[in-house]
C-alpha cells in the first residue's frame, strides 16, 4: 500500500480514489503537474499511479475489460422497436371473381444490435445482429404461442480508410449509395465490396464517386447457361454536396448513378417481400436523386426539405415483355419511376421534443426498379403502383421515438395478371415505439 509521506499526497490519493475510478484513468497529467511543482516526489507519484490503476481494474466494470491494443474505439449500439401494423392489399381480380379483403393486423417487434470497431492503420470492422432473416425487414410478428425468435447476422464487414479521401469495405455492409426507398429498402445491407473516393473541392463542396459490387446470389457453377453464374449488381454513383446559408447549415445534394446486373438468376429462397424469383437480366438503370435542405426557415432548429429520386430502366422493354411476360399490345413497358417529397422538421431527431414530418408521392413503372431491392412497405415492394407515403416522428425522450407512417398506393396499368404488377390498391399504417441504445 502506498506510504503517504505528506498531507498533500494523502489528500491527493484520497481525492482521486474517492472521486471515482474513471477519474483515475485521466489523472496522469495531474500527477505530472504535482511532480513538477514538487508537491509529490517521482517515487510517490509512481506508487500513486499503480494504486489508481489497481483501484480502476478492481472496482470498475471498464477496468475488467481486456480489449486488444489494436482497438482505438469500440462502439455498441442498437434499437428495439415495438410496432402495430394494419395493412390491406387488394389485388386486381378477373371480372366476376369473388372480392378479396386481404387485411392484416399484427403486433411486431424488431431488435437490432450493432458492434463497430475502429482499429489501427485506418481499419475498421463490425457486425450487426437482428431478429429477421429477410434482408428487407428485421421484424418478427408476435405469434406461435409465445415461441422464441431467431437472431441473424445482418452485417459483417471489414473496412479500410487510408485517408480522408478513400474508403473501402468488404462484406455485408451498410448501403453506401445515396438513394431513397424508391429503389433501396433502408433495411437491405448489400454484400460484396464498396469503394468511395471523396474530393474536398472547397470548404463548402465535396464530390464523391461511389461504387458497389453487390453479390446477390451464389449459384451452382456446374449448371450450364446463365443460371450457373453468380448474380451481381454493379452500381456506380457521383454525388455532389454543397453547403450554404448562415453557418453553412443548409445543403444541396445531387446524385447521378448507373446500375447494372449480370446475366444470372435469383432462385427460390429469396425471403423479401414480393421477391422476384428468376432472371436478373434486362436491368440497366440510370438514377438521379437529391435533396435540398433549408435550415432555420421558421426559427432556430427548424428545417424544410425537398427531396427526389428517380430511376429509368434502359432495358425496360426486355424486362417487361420477355422477363415478366407482359403483352406489349396491352401494356406499356413502365421504364421510369420517380419520387418527389417535402419534409419539415424541428431539431435533429436526437433530443426530446424534436419532430419531423415527411410526405412524398411516387410512381413506379412495372419494370422501373428491382423489386428485390425497393421498399417492402410501400405497395409491398410491388411495381406498377403510384401513391404516397406520410411519415411523422416525435422524440418522446432523447432516446425514444414515437412514429406513425401511412402508405397508400394504387395500380397504374390495369389488367395485368402478372403478380408483381396486379396490386389494385394497398394501404398500410405503422405505429411504432422505438428505443435506441
Amino acid at each position, binding site marked *: 500500500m502506498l506510504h503517504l509521506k505528506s498531507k498533500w499526497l494523502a489528500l491527493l490519493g484520497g481525492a482521486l480514489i474517492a472521486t471515482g475510478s474513471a477519474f483515475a*484513468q485521466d489523472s496522469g497529467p495531474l500527477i505530472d503537474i504535482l*511532480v*513538477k511543482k514538487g508537491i509529490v516526489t*517521482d*517515487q510517490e507519484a*509512481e*506508487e500513486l*499511479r*499503480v494504486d489508481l*490503476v*489497481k483501484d*480502476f*481494474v*478492481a472496482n470498475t466494470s471498464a*477496468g*475488467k475489460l*481486456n480489449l486488444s491494443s489494436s482497438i482505438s474505439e469500440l462502439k455498441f449500439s442498437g434499437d428495439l422497436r415495438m410496432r402495430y401494423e394494419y395493412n390491406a392489399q387488394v389485388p386486381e381480380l378477373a371480372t366476376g371473381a369473388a372480392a378479396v379483403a386481404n387485411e392484416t393486423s399484427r403486433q411486431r417487434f424488431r431488435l437490432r444490435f450493432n458492434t463497430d470497431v475502429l482499429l*489501427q*492503420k485506418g481499419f475498421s470492422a463490425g457486425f450487426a445482429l437482428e431478429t429477421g432473416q429477410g434482408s428487407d425487414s428485421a421484424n418478427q410478428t408476435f405469434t406461435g404461442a409465445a415461441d422464441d425468435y431467431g437472431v441473424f447476422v445482418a452485417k459483417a464487414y471489414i473496412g479500410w480508410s487510408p485517408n480522408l479521401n478513400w474508403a473501402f469495405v468488404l462484406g455485408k455492409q451498410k448501403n453506401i449509395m445515396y438513394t431513397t426507398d424508391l429503389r433501396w429498402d433502408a433495411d437491405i445491407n448489400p454484400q460484396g465490396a464498396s469503394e468511395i473516393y471523396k474530393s474536398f473541392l472547397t470548404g463548402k463542396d465535396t464530390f464523391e464517386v461511389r461504387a458497389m459490387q453487390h453479390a446477390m446470389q451464389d449459384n451452382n457453377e456446374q449448371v450450364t447457361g446463365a443460371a450457373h453464374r453468380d448474380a451481381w449488381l454493379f452500381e456506380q454513383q457521383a454525388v455532389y454536396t454543397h453547403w450554404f446559408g448562415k453557418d453553412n447549415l443548409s445543403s444541396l445534394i445531387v446524385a447521378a448513378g448507373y446500375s447494372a446486373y449480370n446475366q444470372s438468376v435469383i432462385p427460390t429462397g429469396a425471403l423479401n417481400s414480393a421477391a422476384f424469383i428468376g432472371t436478373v437480366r434486362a436491368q440497366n438503370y440510370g438514377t438521379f436523386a437529391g435533396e435540398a435542405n433549408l435550415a432555420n426557415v421558421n426559427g432556430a432548429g427548424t428545417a424544410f426539405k425537398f427531396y427526389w429520386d428517380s430511376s429509368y430502366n434502359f432495358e425496360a422493354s426486355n424486362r417487361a415483355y420477355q422477363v415478366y411476360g407482359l403483352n406489349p399490345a396491352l401494356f406499356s413497358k413502365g421504364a421510369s419511376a420517380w419520387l418527389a417529397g417535402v419534409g419539415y422538421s424541428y431539431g435533429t431527431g436526437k433530443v426530446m421534443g424534436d419532430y419531423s414530418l415527411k410526405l412524398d408521392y411516387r410512381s413506379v413503372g412495372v419494370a422501373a426498379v428491382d423489386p428485390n431491392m425497393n421498399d417492402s412497405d410501400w405497395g409491398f415492394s410491388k411495381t406498377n403502383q403510384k401513391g404516397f407515403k406520410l411519415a411523422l416522428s416525435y422524440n418522446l425522450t432523447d432516446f425514444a421515438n414515437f412514429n406513425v407512417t401511412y402508405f397508400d398506393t394504387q395500380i397504374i396499368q390495369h389488367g395485368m395478371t402478372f403478380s408483381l404488377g396486379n396490386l389494385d390498391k394497398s394501404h398500410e399504417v405503422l405505429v411504432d415505439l422505438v428505443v435506441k441504445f
Partner: protein
Amino acid sequence: MKKLILLLAALTAVASASAQKLVIKGSDTLGAKLVPTLAEEYKAKNPGVSFEIAAEGSTTGIAAIIDGTAQIGMSSRRAKPTEVSAASAKGVTMKPTIVAFDGIAIIVNAASPITGLTKRQVEQIFAGDITDWSAVGGTPGAISIYTRNTSSGTYSDFKDLAMKKRDYASSSQKMAGNEQIVSEVAKNPSGIGYVGLAYTTEPGIKVIPVDGSRPSKESVLAKKYPYARPTFYYTNGEPTGEAAKFVDFTLSDAGQKIVSRIGFVPIR
C-alpha cells in the same frame, strides 16, 4: 563420519549459494549496461551472491514478476493497466521503484547535416508522414527509421511521448536493442533512431536537439527535455531478502554513482 559431515557441509554451502541467486529480467535499456555493472559491484561487496540477468525488453520483465520467475523486473516504462490487472488476479502486487531517469535521445548518422528537429517533425518522421530528409532541411533521400521491437518499453514509451500514440511507419525497422540501433544509424547516412542516454556517446552517431532541448542530466531532471522518463525495478510488493538489498544498493549513493557513470540520470 567425518566424510559424511564434510559432505553435508558442502551440500549446505551449495544450497546456501544457490539461495543467494538473484534473477533479474526485463528492459534492455537497463539490462544491457547499467544493471550488469551494478551487479558486478554488488557481487564484489557480497561474494556469495550470483545474478541471472536477462535483458529482453520491459514487457518480459513485468511478465516475469507476474509469473514469479524473477525477483526483480527491469522496465523502462510503467506497467500497463492490463498488466496490473493480471498481476492482481494472481495475487501479485506490482511495486514500482524508480532507479534512474533516462532521456530518449534522437540520433542520426554523424555525417548528417541535420542540426535539430521539432517535436512535430519527430512525430511525422517516425509515423511515416515525412519520408524524405529534404522535408526537414536534410540532404534529399529516403529516411531510414530504426526503432526498438515491440517487447521494448522504449518502443511504447516513445509512442506515448513523441508520437501521440500513433503507429510507427510501416517502413520502420525493428531492432532488438539500443546497441543495434546505434550500429545501424552509424552505418546509414540516411538513418534516424532513438536510444537511451547511456548510448549517445557511441561513435558514428550524433544526438539531435528536439525543440532546441538536448537530453542531459539537467534537462531530464528539470523535465524540460520532452522525451524524459523514469526507469523502474518492479517487484512483487515491497522487495525482501537479497532483492531488497540489491534495490537499496541501486538507490544508494554508490549505486547512483554507477547510474551516472553509465550515462543515466540519477534520481537525486
